[in-house]
């Protein structure tokens, strides 16, 4: 293995320091005894305990979870359908317009998306609450799903679907029995992306949320306006922990899949 040069080592350190020092500070202060966020008052886990007692936070977390779960599923179904039609539907009238339009929300400022959804919900007389947040999140995250899934569809051999038709499948059976299992990894990563986006979203949710339902990001943001409490640090640490576990698990699974595939390829070569 090559040793890092002095220059590379420095840039690596600086880069990672820039990324991770803020998070490390949050983690350290989450174990702070003192109520004052900026003053170290000794080690304690009491804020974690307080957090678990805080009904408002727990409610918000539960709302966030429900929103993320339902909106990501709706987004995955709609996004996959959209991608399939745009990639496989052949040339139909307005196809270019549609495929342009599916990318537009990706670059649309969230404020505008949020505002337009708010106006829509008001004009059709829909009460703002859990349901409207789910709708809003499904709307903006289905574009991301669609982009991920269509890139997979573009790269896979069309004749596999034709083979399914040739062997007696109706077009729907061909999709269910052949296409879907093959694009499943892309659909799952699209779903995870939609879930993450939903858990993360503050701007759109604050437009469409009502008094009956508040998501965790909204709750955190509003409580910070009254001053950062150590509970928020504890909450952030828990979230950082969850994300870390998730990322490590994902990369381990990928690595194992790659290794298994390589083993199988070697096996196939030896057979010939």
């Amino acid at each position, binding site marked *: 293995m090559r040793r890092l040069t002095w220059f590379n080592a420095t840039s690596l350190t600086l880069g990672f320091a820039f990324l991770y020092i803020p998070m490390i500070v949050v983690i350290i202060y989450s174990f702070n005894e003192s109520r004052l966020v900026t003053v170290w008052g000794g080690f304690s886990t009491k804020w974690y305990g307080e957090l678990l007692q805080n009904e408002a936070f727990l409610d918000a977390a539960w709302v966030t979870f429900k929103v993320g779960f339902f909106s990501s599923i709706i987004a995955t179904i709609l996004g996959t359908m959209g991608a399939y039609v745009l990639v496989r539907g052949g040339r139909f009238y307005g196809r270019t317009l549609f495929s342009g339009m599916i990318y537009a929300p990706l670059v649309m400022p969230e404020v505008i998306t949020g505002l337009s959804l708010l106006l829509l919900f008001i004009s059709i007389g829909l009460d703002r609450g859990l349901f409207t947040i789910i709708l809003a999140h499904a709307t903006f995250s289905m574009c991301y799903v669609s982009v991920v899934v269509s890139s997979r569809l573009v790269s896979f051999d069309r004749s596999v679907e034709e083979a399914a038709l*040739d062997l007696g499948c109706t077009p729907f059976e061909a999709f269910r029995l052949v296409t879907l299992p093959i694009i499943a990894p892309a659909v799952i990563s699209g779903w995870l992306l939609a879930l993450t986006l939903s858990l993360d979203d503050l701007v759109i949710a604050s437009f469409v949320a009502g008094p009956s339902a508040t998501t965790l990001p909204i709750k955190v943001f509003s409580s910070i306006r009254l001053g950062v409490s150590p509970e928020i640090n504890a909450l952030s640490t828990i979230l950082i922990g969850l994300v870390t576990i998730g990322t490590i698990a994902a990369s381990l699974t990928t690595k194992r899949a790659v290794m298994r595939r390589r083993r199988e390829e070697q096996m196939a070569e030896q057979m010939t």
Partner: protein
Amino acid sequence: MSETVFEPWNDPAEKPLIQFRNVTKSFGDFTAIDDLSIDIYEKEFFALLGPSGCGKTTMMRMLAGFEKVTSGTIMLDGQDISPIPPNKRSVNMMFQSYALFPHLTVYDNIAFGLKRDKLPKDQIDARVKEMLRLVQIEKFGQRKPEQISGGQRQRVALARALAKAPKLLLLDEPLSALDKKLRQDTQFELMDIQEKTGTTFVVVTHDQEEAMTVASRVAVMDHGKLKQVDTPDRIYEAPNSTYVADFIGDVNIIEGHATKQGETMAIGWAEGQPPIIGTPSKPMDDGKVSFAIRPEKVAISAERPTDRNNVVQGKVLDIAYLGNLSTYHVQLPNGVMIKAQAANSRRRASRPFTWDDEVWLSWTDTAGIILEN
């Protein structure tokens, strides 16, 4: 004609399995198939041969049902198949990329079509096992496609397409992904399987050797039209155009003017050279012609041969050594290049001709083909 000869196309009582009737297929402004009619008979091994873009793949995709005809009709077993979707046709296809289902085992790939027909489980099992045996991959039933080699995948694709016992099997460049040695072995196996199952095979290929080896009849295509449909030996020995002569194998083509001379034609082709004497395949008038002769029918010798009419002298310019054969590129005094092929029946060191040798080329009156322009 003996009874064992398989020539349904010469039997007027025989009904064709597939009939193309004035079929045209266009993609926008581009005409892929141009007013094409052809009959293909049951149990034939029919090869569509042509360069890429000649429309052969389009013909196959129309038979499978993936493309709709622009005009004309395609009949299968006397029935117009245009309105029938691919999943309802008794036609199966082996794809060039094999198109195996990567998420299913070899066994399930082969069983896929049978399961769609809702056959009872034990029947499916028996049929799949029969197919695995037919293509000799019994050992690999539980493997996934990525766990087997390219040659084995080709067998799986064939078994999967044959499993439903279709009336017609389409093979799209079936052997193009295999290396040369394996390809040659597989060609014979393919013929064997075709004979065993009695299925009609239509194969699309750009490899003329493959078409010649496997097919009962070959259709040479160019720009959406059929150039010639005939048995491999007729295509090779009696091409009806310079295009076919040039496309199949190696050929020398000499332009000239033919005049009748009794039974034969005398073709004047160069100043100061005696005319080429050739025998026309059918009576023809005087006029401009192309004289086509295969290199292996041109003899090369150091002495002037006396037993034949067509003799020219030239200088060896180049030798292509192919192992079993050598092709000599001989330049005549007027600059015309003629290729002559000779079997290397002796070891290299003792071969008679080398670069810049003066040699005599000769051929008989019936060795070449006279093609009217």
